[in-house]
C-alpha cells in the first residue's frame, strides 16, 4: 500500500510483566478515518497511545516491534518523542483544556514549536484552527475567557482545535465523545468527517454505531489481539471472524 501513513509490525505492549497488546500488525492510511473497536480492556487505547509514544509517560510500559511513520521507526533512538508528538497529535477521552484562556489554549502548541514568530501569524493560526474545529463563530468574541468555562462539547472541540494548531499529520482520538451528550457527539462526528481531508485520523470508540458512522476502516481488538481489520462496511455486514460477528451483534462487550 502506497498510501499508508502509519505502519505497525508485530507490536507488543507490556505493562510491567503484563502483556496488554499481542503481536499487532496494521496499516493506517492517509485521508480516511480508522476506528479501533472492541470490548473494554481489549487494549485499543493502549495501542493508540503507543502510536505517539504517550506510553512513555507511564513508568513501567514497554513497547516492542516496529511502528513506522512515513517509513521512519518512531521508537528508534534518533526519534525525539517530543517532535513525534507534534506530528501525531492526540485528543483525549475527557476534554482537558488548560486552565488558561481560549486563545492561550490554542496558542500553547504553536508557541512551543515556534510556528508563529509574529503576533499576526499566531492570530491567523488561532482563527484557522478554531474555524476548522467548527468553534470560531461560537467563541470569536470571547477568546480571552477561560477555556474551562465552555460547555463539554465546546471544550472537546477546543481540544481538537488545539491539536490542529500545531499542524500534525495524524490525529489520534481516544473515545473523544464518551463524555459528551448526543448533540455534542453529532457535532464532533461531523467535524471528524471534515478533518479526514487534511489528516489521517485514528479514533478509539466503544460505540459501534459511531465507528460505523465516521470511519472508513475498522479494526476489532479483543484481549490484546487484533482480531479483524478491514473496510468498515465489510466488518459490519460480513465479518470474517466469528468473534467479530459476536461482538457487533451484541453477544458480548
Amino acid at each position, binding site marked *: 500500500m502506497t498510501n499508508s501513513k502509519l505502519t505497525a509490525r508485530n507490536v507488543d505492549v507490556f505493562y510491567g510483566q503484563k502483556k496488554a497488546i499481542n503481536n499487532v500488525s496494521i496499516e493506517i492510511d492517509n485521508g480516511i478515518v480508522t476506528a479501533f473497536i472492541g470490548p473494554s480492556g481489549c487494549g485499543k487505547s493502549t495501542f493508540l497511545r503507543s502510536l505517539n509514544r504517550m506510553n512513555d509517560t507511564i513508568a513501567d510500559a514497554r513497547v516492542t516491534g516496529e511502528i513506522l511513520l512515513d517509513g521512519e521507526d518512531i521508537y528508534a533512538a534518533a526519534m525525539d518523542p517530543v517532535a*513525534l508528538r507534534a506530528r501525531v*497529535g492526540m485528543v*483525549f477521552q475527557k476534554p*482537558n483544556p488548560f*486552565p*488558561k484562556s481560549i486563545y492561550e489554549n490554542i496558542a*500553547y*502548541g504553536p508557541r512551543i514549536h515556534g510556528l508563529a514568530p509574529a503576533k499576526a501569524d499566531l492570530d491567523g493560526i488561532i482563527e484557522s484552527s478554531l474555524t476548522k474545529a467548527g468553534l470560531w463563530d461560537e467563541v470569536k468574541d470571547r477568546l480571552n475567557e477561560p477555556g474551562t468555562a465552555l460547555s463539554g462539547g465546546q471544550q472537546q472541540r477546543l481540544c481538537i482545535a*488545539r491539536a490542529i494548531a500545531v499542524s500534525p499529520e495524524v490525529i489520534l482520538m481516544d473515545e473523544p465523545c464518551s463524555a459528551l451528550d448526543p448533540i455534542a457527539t453529532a457535532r464532533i462526528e461531523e467535524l471528524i468527517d471534515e478533518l479526514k481531508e487534511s489528516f489521517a485520523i485514528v479514533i478509539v470508540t466503544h460505540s459501534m454505531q459511531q465507528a460505523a458512522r465516521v470511519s472508513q476502516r475498522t479494526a476489532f481488538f479483543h484481549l490484546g489481539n487484533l482480531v479483524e481489520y478491514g473496510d468498515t462496511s465489510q466488518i459490519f455486514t460480513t465479518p470474517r471472524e466469528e468473534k467479530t460477528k459476536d461482538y457487533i451483534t451484541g453477544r458480548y462487550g
Partner: protein
Amino acid sequence: MILTGVLLAVLGLGLVGWFAARGRARLLHTGRGSIHSMPGYHAWHVALWIVFPALIAWGAWQAIMPGLVDGAVMADPVAAQLPADAMSRAAILSEAKSIADNPDAVAFNPLANTLAGPVRDAHGRFGLIGALLVAIVAVAGGGWAFTRIRANFPARTRVERGVLGLLLVASLMAILTTFGIVASLVFEAGMFFKDVSPIDFLTGLHWSPGSARGDNLGDSFGAVPLFWGTIYIGAIIAMIVAIPLGLMSAIYLTQYATPTIRKWLKPMLEILAGIPTVVYGYFAALTVAPIFRDFAASLGMANPSTESALAAGVVMGVMIIPFVSSMADDALAAVPRAMSDGSLALGATKSETIKKVLLPAALPGIVAGVMLAISRAIGETMIVVMAAGAAANLSANPFASMTTVTYQIVQMLTGDQEFNSPKTLSAFALGLVLFIVTLILNIIALRVVKRFREAYE
C-alpha cells in the same frame, strides 16, 4: 487529697455497676428477641449513669470548695487578727494554705502559722462532705439506672446517644479552648490599651518598654519595629529561602525522581520538619550566625553583631522547607494527569509542561501553602529568641540585629514582673496582633485551597 481518692472510687464503682448490670441483664436474656438491648449495653448504661453525674458533682464541688474553706477560716476567731486591707489578708491566707498543704514550709508572716490549723481543718471537713456528696450522686445515678434494666428498656439507644454527646463535647473542646484563648487575650490586651492608645501602639516607631514612664507610655510602646522585624525575618528572608527550595524539591520529587529516590528523599525531607525548633535555634545562634557575622565583617561592616536577622531568617527558611514542599507536592499531585497528558501530546517537553501547565494550574494551592508557611514562620519563637537579638531596630540591613513580636512576648512575660504593669500587658497586645494576623492568613489560605480543590472535582 481525699477528692482524688473519690475519683478513683467512682471509677471502681462504675466497674462494679458495669458487671452487676450485665449480670442482671443476662438473666433477662432468655433467647432471640427476648431483650431489646444486649446485656453489654445495659452494663454501659449503668456505668455511665454512675460515672458521669458523679464527675459533674465532683467538678462542681471543686469549684465551690475554696470559697467554703475561705469562709470557714474567716469565721475562725484567729482570723480576727488579720489586717483589714484586702491585699495583705489574701497574702497571709494563701501563705496559710501552702503551710496547710506542706508542713515543712516556713511562713514569712507568723499569723499564717496560726491560721494553718483552721485551714487544714476546713479542708478536711469540706473534703469529706464533697466525697460523701459525690458518692451519693454516684450511687443514686447507678441505682436509678439499675432499676431500669428491663427486657424492653432501650439501653442501646440511650448509650449511643450518650456516646454521641461525648464525641460532641470532645470536638467542642478544641473550639472552646480557642475561644478561651481569644477571650483572655482580648481582656488583657484591653487592659494594656487603657494605658497606651492602640494608635500609638500600632503606628509608633519606638519600642523601649524598659524606659516607659507614667506619662509618656505611648512613646515607649510603638510596635512597628517589632512588626517589621517579624515580617522581615519570617515573611521575607525565610520565604526567600523556603519558597524556591521547597518548590524545586516538590517539582523534583513529584515529576522527575524515580520511585526509589522518592522513597528515600521524601522521608528525609520530612525529618527536617520533626527537628525541635530549639535545636534549629542553637544551630542558628552557634553555627550560622557567626558565619554571617564574619561575612558582614569581610564586606566592611563595622562591628557586625552576632545576632542577625539574616541568621534567624535563613534557618527559619530551612525549617519551613518541608512545609512548603509538602504543600506544593499536594498541589502538583492534585492537577489531573489529563492536563499534563494534553500538553505532552502537543509535543511539549516535560519541563515546558511543568512550567506552563502544571505550575500555573497548581498555583493557588502553592500560594495557599506559602501563606500557611508564613503564618507558621511569624509565630515561630525559639529561633528568633536565640539568633535574632533583642534590639528593636527598624532597619533593612539583614546583618543588623532585629527583634520580633514573639521574642518580645517572651521577654515581657519571663522573669520577675509586675503582672499589671503596661510592660507585661503589652505582651498580650502583641499576642493579639499576632493571633489576628495568623488567623487571617490561615482563613485566606484554607479558602484558596478549598476553591482550588473544587476546580478539579
